[in-house]
C-alpha cells in the first residue's frame, strides 16, 4: 500500500502480538489457577504440505500452486475452506501484497447455514504486507465443533500466498476438547466490529456449560459478604460491616478489571498517530481497504466537490463511512435505479448530473458516463470524476 514504510510493517506485525501476550499474562496472573477448565494437554502442531492443501482446499477463486506457495488473488471477498476437520489452531506462514483482512470462522457441514463471518465474535486479523506469520485460534470462533472446518475469508485487494501451514488437531476426548474451548473463549480478546454497541463481549465463564463470569464473580462477592456478616455477628460488632463490604467489592472488582483489561487491551490501538489522515488510512481495523480509499478520496477530492459513493449491493457501511469521512462535502449513496440519490440520514438529495465525483468500493456497477477514474487503491476501489 502506498506510503507504508518498512519500520511500520514491523510495528504492525509485532505490536498487537506483544500486547496480546501481555494481556494474557495479566489474565493468567490475576486468575492464577481459577481459570475455567484445566489446562488441556494440547496435541502437537502438525504440518500440512502446501501441495496437499492446494489439492484439497476449496476456494471461490482459482488456486495457483507456485514455487512460492499457494497463491490467492484477493479482490472483494476470497473464501478458502481448509481440509482440516476439527482443527483447533492454525499457524500460517504467508507472503502478502496489498491490503488484506483475514477473517476466520468454523463451518460445520451439518449446519444449515454459514455463520456470519462478522460475528459476534468477529475474529479478524489485518495482514501486514510482506512476509509474515499468523496464529489463528479457531476455538475462539463461534460454533466451533470437532466436525467443523476452518473457513478463511480474505477481503481487500492484492495477492495472498500461503507458504506454510501448520495446525493443531482437536483433543483426544470430549472432556479435553470442552476444557480447551472453555479456556480459549474465556481468554479470547474482545473483537470490536461496527455492531459492537450494546455489549462489549459475552462474558462466558464456561461456554460449554453456558455459565457466565459475572455470575461467578457476583456469587464470590456474596460469599465474601456473607463471611463478613458472620464475622460481624460473631465478633460482637467489632468488625465494621461497611468496610468489609468495601474490601469484598474491591477484591472482586480487581478480578473483573483484570479480565476486562486482558480482553480489551489486545483490541485497542494505543499508539498515537498525530496525522488524522494516517489514522483514517490505517485504523479502520476491520475494513483496511475502505480506510485506504477514504484517505485517498480526502486527498484527491476538492473541498467543494459533490460526491456520490457506492458499495457492494446493499452494503450500508462503506457508503456511510465514506460520506462521513468526506464531510463537509455533499455526499449521497448511489442506489441503482434511483433518479435522485440520498445521503445517509437523507440530509442531501442529488442527481447524477449534480455530482462532481464518484467514490466506489467493490461495486458491480460500471463507471457512469461522463466520469473517468482518477485514483484508486485497487481495481474495485477507486475515485472517478468528471474530466
Amino acid at each position, binding site marked *: 500500500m502506498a506510503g507504508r514504510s518498512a519500520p511500520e510493517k514491523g510495528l504492525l506485525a509485532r505490536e498487537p502480538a506483544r500486547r496480546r501476550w501481555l494481556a494474557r499474562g495479566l489474565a493468567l496472573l490475576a486468575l492464577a489457577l481459577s481459570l475455567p477448565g484445566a489446562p488441556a494437554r494440547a496435541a502437537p502442531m502438525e504440518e500440512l504440505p502446501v501441495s496437499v492443501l492446494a489439492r484439497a482446499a476449496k476456494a471461490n477463486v482459482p488456486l495457483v500452486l507456485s514455487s512460492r506457495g499457494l497463491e490467492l488473488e484477493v479482490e472483494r471477498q476470497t473464501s478458502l475452506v481448509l481440509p482440516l476437520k476439527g482443527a483447533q489452531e492454525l499457524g500460517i506462514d504467508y507472503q502478502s501484497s496489498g491490503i488484506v483482512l483475514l477473517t476466520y470462522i468454523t463451518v460445520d457441514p451439518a449446519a444449515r447455514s454459514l455463520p456470519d463471518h462478522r460475528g459476534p465474535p468477529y475474529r479478524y486479523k489485518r495482514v501486514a504486507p510482506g512476509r509474515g506469520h499468523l496464529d489463528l485460534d479457531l476455538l475462539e470462533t463461534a460454533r466451533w465443533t470437532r466436525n467443523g472446518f476452518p473457513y478463511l475469508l480474505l477481503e481487500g485487494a492484492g495477492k495472498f500466498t500461503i507458504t506454510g501451514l501448520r495446525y493443531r488437531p482437536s483433543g483426544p476426548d470430549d472432556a479435553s476438547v470442552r476444557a480447551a474451548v472453555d479456556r480459549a473463549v474465556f481468554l479470547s480478546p*474482545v473483537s*470490536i466490529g*461496527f*455492531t*459492537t*454497541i*450494546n*455489549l*462489549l463481549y459475552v*462474558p462466558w465463564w464456561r461456554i460449554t456449560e453456558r455459565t*457466565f*463470569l*459475572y*455470575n461467578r*464473580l*457476583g456469587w464470590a*462477592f*456474596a460469599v465474601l*459478604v456473607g463471611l463478613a*456478616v458472620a464475622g460481624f455477628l460473631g465478633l460482637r460488632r467489632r468488625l465494621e*460491616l*461497611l*468496610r468489609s*463490604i*468495601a474490601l469484598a*467489592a474491591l477484591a*472482586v*472488582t*480487581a478480578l*473483573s*478489571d483484570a479480565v*476486562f*483489561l486482558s480482553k*480489551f487491551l489486545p483490541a*485497542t*490501538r*494505543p*499508539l*498515537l*498517530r498525530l496525522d*488524522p489522515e494516517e*489514522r*483514517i488510512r490505517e*485504523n*479502520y481495523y476491520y*475494513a483496511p481497504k475502505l*480506510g485506504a480509499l477514504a484517505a485517498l478520496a480526502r486527498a484527491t477530492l476538492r*473541498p467543494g466537490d459533490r460526491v456520490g459513493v457506492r458499495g457492494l449491493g446493499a452494503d*450500508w*457501511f462503506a457508503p*456511510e*463511512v465514506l*460520506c*462521513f469521512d468526506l*464531510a*463537509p462535502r455533499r455526499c449521497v449513496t448511489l442506489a441503482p435505479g434511483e433518479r435522485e440519490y440520498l445521503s*445517509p*440520514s*437523507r*440530509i442531501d438529495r442529488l442527481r447524477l448530473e449534480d455530482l462532481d465525483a464518484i467514490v466506489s468500493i467493490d461495486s458491480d456497477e460500471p463507471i457512469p458516463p461522463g466520469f473517468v477514474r482518477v485514483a484508486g487503491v485497487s481495481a474495485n476501489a477507486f475515485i472517478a470524476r468528471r474530466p
Partner: protein
Amino acid sequence: MSFFLAAAAFCASGYALLWLLRLATGRLAVDLAASWFVGTGFYSLAVFVLRFLFGVPYTALSALAVLALPPAALAGAWASGRRSPGAAPPGSVAPPSPARLVPRPVWLFAPLAAYVLFTAAVTVLHGVNTPTQTDDALRVRALAPVLAFRDEWNAEARGVLVMSGPIPTFVPSLGWRLTGSVDQFHVNGSILLGLVALLLLSVALPSARGSPERGWASAFAVLSLPLFVYHCTATYADATLAIYLGAAFLFFIEFGLGADEADGKRAMLLLVGAAMVKREGEITAGAVAAVLLAQAAWQGRRSGEALLRRLLLLCLPLVPVLVARVFLVGWRSAFPFLSVAAQRAVEAAPQVQSAPALAVQARVVPAFVWSVFSSGSGGIVYWVLAAVLALQLGAVRRRGAAWTLAAVLLLFAEVAVTSLWLFPAFTVDQSTVNRQMLPLAVATALWLAALLAPGAPLPVAGAISARAGPAEPGEKRRREGKRRRP
C-alpha cells in the same frame, strides 16, 4: 491544534461563568474540570437558542461572541468592583477538612491509582486513534456536528440535531467553525476530554474536601465499568450523557455529605448540561434533578425555601431550549418519549397484544436481569448495590447518602420502565438495554465509591456546623451547653 484551542476556550468561558455565578470552589483542579462541563453546556445552550429562536447564523463570529460573553461579563463585574476575584464566592462554605492529596493507606490506593491512570491513558489513546465507524455515530451522533458546521437545517437535519442534542452537536463543531475545516476526530476528542474532566473532578473534588480515598475510589469505580470505558471510544452519545450526569452526581454527593448550598447549585448547573445530551438526557437528568430539588425542599422546611427557588432558577435556561426544540420539529418529535409512552400504553394492554409481543414479554424480564447482573457491562456494580441495600441502609442514612441513593433508584426505575415496558424488544435482542444503563452505572459507581471508600466522609450534622467556619476544639460542647441553658 484547533481542538485544544476550542477546549481552552470552553474552559475559559466556563471558568468565568463559575465565578460570575459565585460557584467557583477556589480549587484550580476542581474548577478546571467543572469549567469544561459548564463551558460546553453554556456554549451549546446559547448557540442553540440563538440559532433557532432568534435566527442568528452559526458563524465563527457568533461562536466567539458567545464564548467571550462570560469572561467579558466577569471582567466588567470586576472592573465595576461588584466581584472580588480573589474572594471566596459567597454561598460556598470553607472546606470542612483541609485538602489532602495522598490517599491512605498508600499500599491499597497505589494500585487503584495505577489502574486509573493506565486505563484512562489506553482509553484516550485508543479513542483518539479510532475513526468513527459505528452506525448510529455515522448517521446521527457524529453527523450532527457536521450539520452544525454547514449550518443548513432542513427537516432531516433538524431531526438529527434533536436526536443528538445541543451538546454533542455544537461542542465538536467549534474547532471546525473557527478554522473552517473539518477534522472528524474532534467528535471522539470531545467525548474523551469529557472523560478526562470527569476523572479529574472525581479525584480532585473529594481530595479538596479532605478525602482523596473517596476521589481515587470514585475514578476507579467509573473505570471498572467495561461498557462505559469502551463507549468512550465508540463515538456514541451514551457515554457523553453518562459523563455529564456523573459530573453532576459528584457535586450532588458532596451536597448530600456536606449540605453546602453551592454544591447543590453546581450539581443543578451540570444537570442542565446533561439534559442537553440525546433525547433521553432531559429525562435522565430530570430524575436526578427532581431528587435534588426534593432534598433542597426538605432541608428548607425550617430555613425557608430560598435554595429551592435558586435551584429552580438554574433550570430556567432549559426552557428556551425546549421551546426552540418544539419550533424545530414540533411537539410530537420534541418529546418523543411522551408519545411513545402513550402509544405503548395502548399497545401493552393485554387484549391488543399480538402473539409475538406476548412472546417478547415472556422473555424480557430474564433478559433485563441478565443485563443487570450477568452481562458484565457494569462490572459488578449492581451486585454491590444489592448487598449495600440489603445490609447497610442505616449506614446510608448516617453517611448522608440517602438522597443520592434515591436518585440512583429513580434512575434504575427509569431504565427498568424503558427496558421492560416501553421497548421490551430491544431488551430481548440486547440492542439497547446495556448502553441505556450507562448513566445509571456511572451514578451507581460514584455513589458506591463515596459510601464505601475509607477516609472520613463528613457527617451531615458536622457539615452544617461547618458553615460557620471550622470548629475549634471544645466548640461543639460549648454550643450544646448554650442550648441547654434556659
